[in-house]
């Protein structure tokens, strides 16, 4: 009952905000607001692998790309069929169905990609795992570059604008609630036990293989959803958006915010996205100063801005996901 009330309230608030948020903040801030939301979904989901399960993935951009291209592909090529089947609905209803179908496909495709990366990666640890996930991310990008149906190197244009503030922040709420519930459950304790001491976890009867793959798959599903929302917000996709540097920025977000906590990931996503915009005031010096700030934060506050948990002293409880 309480759950239903929460979701109805969330829908009502977001729906209400959608009506006038753009007029209040202006189109530019609206754009940033939506990108912040997409980055929150990406950071919170990546945090599941890197923060909670203690695995080290730098290939998140790959799953993001899979979701973006799948969603856009399904919508662009399936548009007529879906609109035909839902012809009895008004335009808005048709768009909703279209987007939801696209997002569902994006989630499935990205989840499968996560499974494909997760299983072989199990044998690897630490930096070896990191470089392999990075490699997978790049392989996915290169494959997309070679698919003519989605524009290949020319980029995918003509994607209808279906997502907006409402959908992106609904995605944020769904992601946060799901990840929150997951890490609070027995699954979450299994993830954290793997992070803190994999051998001990195994000795205690935790099926580490299963949980590692699970964290990859769940994380990828949300990255896929973020991708779908991004595709239908920007209306144009290009493989270069999903370079490994995008994965780097996501890692930066979760580490700067504080690894292993949902608030940390959210803070990091907001901070990095907004700072990069604010730093436009620096003109040509924008990224130089951003880089210095990043180095200084890491030197002076290695646990991240909100983090209370450090990797050096493994074993301490992570910041409670409130």
């Amino acid at each position: 009952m309480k759950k239903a009330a929460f979701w109805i309230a969330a829908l009502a608030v977001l729906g209400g905000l959608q009506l006038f948020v753009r007029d209040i903040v202006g189109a530019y801030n609206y754009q940033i607001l939506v990108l912040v939301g997409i980055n929150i979904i990406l950071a919170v989901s990546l945090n599941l692998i890197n923060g909670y399960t203690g695995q080290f993935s730098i290939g998140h951009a790959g799953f993001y790309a899979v979701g973006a291209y799948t969603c856009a592909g399904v919508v662009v090529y399936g548009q007529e069929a879906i609109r035909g089947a839902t012809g009895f609905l008004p335009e808005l209803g048709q768009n909703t169905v279209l987007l939801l179908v696209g997002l569902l496909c994006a989630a499935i495709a990205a989840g499968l990609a996560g499974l494909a990366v997760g299983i072989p990666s199990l044998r690897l640890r630490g930096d070896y795992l990191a470089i392999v996930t990075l490699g997978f991310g790049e392989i996915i990008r290169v494959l997309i570059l070679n698919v003519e149906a989605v524009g290949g190197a020319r980029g995918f244009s003509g994607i209808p604008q279906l997502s907006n503030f409402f959908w992106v922040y609904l995605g944020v709420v769904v992601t946060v609630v799901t990840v929150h519930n997951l890490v609070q459950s027995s699954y979450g304790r299994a993830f954290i036990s793997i992070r803190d001491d994999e051998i001990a976890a195994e000795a205690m009867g935790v099926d580490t293989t299963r949980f590692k793959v699970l964290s990859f798959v769940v994380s990828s599903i949300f990255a896929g959803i973020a991708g779908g929302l991004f595709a239908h917000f920007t209306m144009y996709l290009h493989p270069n958006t999903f370079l490994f540097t995008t994965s780097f920025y996501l890692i930066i977000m979760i580490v700067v915010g504080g690894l292993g906590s949902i608030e940390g990931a959210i803070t990091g996503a907001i901070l990095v996205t907004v700072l990069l915009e604010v730093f436009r005031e620096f003109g040509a010096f924008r990224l130089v100063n951003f880089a210095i700030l990043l180095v200084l934060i890491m030197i002076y506050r290695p646990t991240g801005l909100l983090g209370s948990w450090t990797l050096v002293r493994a074993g301490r409880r992570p910041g409670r996901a409130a």
Partner: protein
Amino acid sequence: MKLPTFSSSVLLLGGLAITSCSGGGGDAANEILIGEYGSLTGTTATFGISTKNGIDLAIDEVNAAGGVLGKQLRVIVEDDQGRPEEAQTVVTKLITRDEVVAILGEVASSRTLAAAPVAQSNGIPMITPSSTNPKITEVGDYIFRVCFIDPFQGFVMAKFAATTLKVRNVAILTDVKNDHSVGLTQVFTEEFGKLGGRIVARESYSEGDTDFSAQLTSLRARNPDAIYVPGYYTEVGLLARQARQLGLDVPLLGGDGWDSPRLTEIGGPAMNNSYFSSHYSPQDTSQLVRRFVGQYQERFGEVPDGLAALAYDAAKLLADAIARAGSAEPAAIRDAIAQTKGFVGVTGTISINAQRNADKAATVVRVAGGKLEFVETIRQ
């Protein structure tokens, strides 16, 4: 359940408050604001920089001559780092925060395609100086260009290869990360086939590559009479050197992406005996071109490349359209740009057609002894 997002949302609002408090406006009474976006940094920075130089030169000239409608033009430049999603964000910023009345940019079609829908939906005219992908102006009636499109340029080089150079077996090396190059390859293949030529081999490379020896070795095995490389000079110069090192001495053919003094600087003598289609020839003796080349050289210390020339024309055409519109209202400017007929620019006489593309002729240029020589003009 406590919402974990609370502390973060406070931060978000704070951040947005910071972003929204600065910028914007300009002295509306005696300035007309124009937005420009381009890759001033990143792997394709050299294109963005040339474009910016061309626009700066044009705008300063217009302002020195008294501006437009009694007002000075001011260009606000944003760097998109060569990333499509950044292009979209900065164009949104230019339009909604800086409130520019028109947008100039980009070179790469991928960035223009990402940003064009923003301009279209906000009703702000955008002129791309040098994006040649036909899809761009199909985005909507506010999107224009001053360059010719891929199909025409591919046709020009195919015709030149078949009728002037009289070669039959051509190999193609495409930059597959570059939509411009992919487009030219398609058209060239079709047109060259129609003219009785044969494509004996196809290989590809990617923007930013430095080693082409593997592709060139494969091409060499097919003994082509010429190699069509419709890429950018940043790669072509290196590619030419490696071709000569491998003993491939046949002519190289290319497109407007070659047009830069850097081509011969990087390629050196390896570039000799190569031909490319371009928008103009710096050797052109018309007064307009001579003055443009002279002033550009004086200010930036090098011969302008094709991108700078197109950017100069785009900015000049925009200023002309604002003057003809008689107002700095975006819709009026749009109509005036659409009605442009016979505008004389350094890259030729430009008329905007019904598809909002520029109708103009192409020039074929030969590289010889480190210099660019005019060969012929080919019309549609």
